[in-house]
């Protein structure tokens, strides 16, 4: 008869907790970067609703404008705006490392300039100044 020897535990296999990303600030900032898409989805939802209203006609369009002026909608869109800027900051800093085309500082400044120009253009156009 073979007596089974009581085996020693042996090497320790670490397990990764689901909350691993809470353990360090660096990982928290990573998750925050990934989470910027959640308020973005809200803004995209607003736009889809707007396109739908525009299709239905002028009365519905007025409803959409009123919807967009509601405080909770403005607040969530403010959050989306902040998220888009935070995403831009991280994205612009990573880009020169993925495609080192020029000096990193120059590339980052160039990308912010692009954001500024597009924002100015959109505001002037939709504000009726263009």
């Amino acid at each position, binding site marked *: 008869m073979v007596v089974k020897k009581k085996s020693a535990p042996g090497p320790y296999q670490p397990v990764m907790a689901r909350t691993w990303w809470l353990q*360090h600030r*660096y990982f928290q900032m990573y998750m925050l970067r990934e989470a910027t898409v959640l308020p973005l989805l809200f803004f995209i939802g607003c736009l889809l609703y707007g396109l739908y209203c525009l299709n239905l006609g002028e009365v519905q369009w007025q409803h959409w404008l009123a919807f967009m002026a509601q405080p909770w909608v403005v607040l969530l869109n403010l959050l989306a705006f902040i998220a888009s800027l935070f995403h831009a900051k991280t994205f612009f800093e990573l880009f020169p490392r*993925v495609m080192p085309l020029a000096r990193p500082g120059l590339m980052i400044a160039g990308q912010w300039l692009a954001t500024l120009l597009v924002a100015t253009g959109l505001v002037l156009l939709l504000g009726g100044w263009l």
Partner: protein
Amino acid sequence: MSKTINIARYNPEQDSQPQLQAFQVDSDHSTSVLDALLQVQQQDPSLGFRWSCRMAICGSCGVMVNGIPKLGCKTFLRDYPDEVTVSALAHFVVEKDLIVDMQPFLAHLSAVKPYLINDQQNAEPHRQTPAQLAKYQQFANCINCGLCYSACPQFGLNPEFLGPAAITLAQRYNLDSRDQGKAARMPELNSKNGVWGCTFVGFCSEVCPKKVDPAAAINQGKVASAGDFIISMFKP
């Protein structure tokens, strides 16, 4: 000055998981974490850890210091005014105390064929201009310490992921003007466990003791792999 250092102890013959044990060590301005571990070993010779060169080139004294991957010889107690907790490198199997099994890491390194591949049977030396050297030089500074693997949550979540050092090394040889092995390396990089296992967390580059920037190497590898993908669509 006396200082407390907590060490995650693990005895494979008894323990089911690592346990912290506190030790007192003498610490002055120049005491490194490795020096402290050597002092502890004087008190308790059963403490297991790896070390060799003491000068951040052999890459064998990697440990977690307060949860961050560090080389013990390059990390100083003076920078930790409060408590210091030292544990084995994260995401690796712990053999004993601070000693981990590096075999998966070494297997990933060898999978990318990290050596010059060149069929030319030529007695002449391969000449290289400074500009050609500059293309890969930063990625050639890796000392294979494995800190980037302990910093990488994607490796922790998926041990099959080739990981930062291996992909950086592949990129280092792919960018070398003397090398012709890119076609042999790309299949590994093109797979889901190659460059595409990375989500650019970027912590690997933060902890790298040689400033190799593996995250940049991997993401440049994504550009290369995407190019390879497009080329493959036009091949029969």
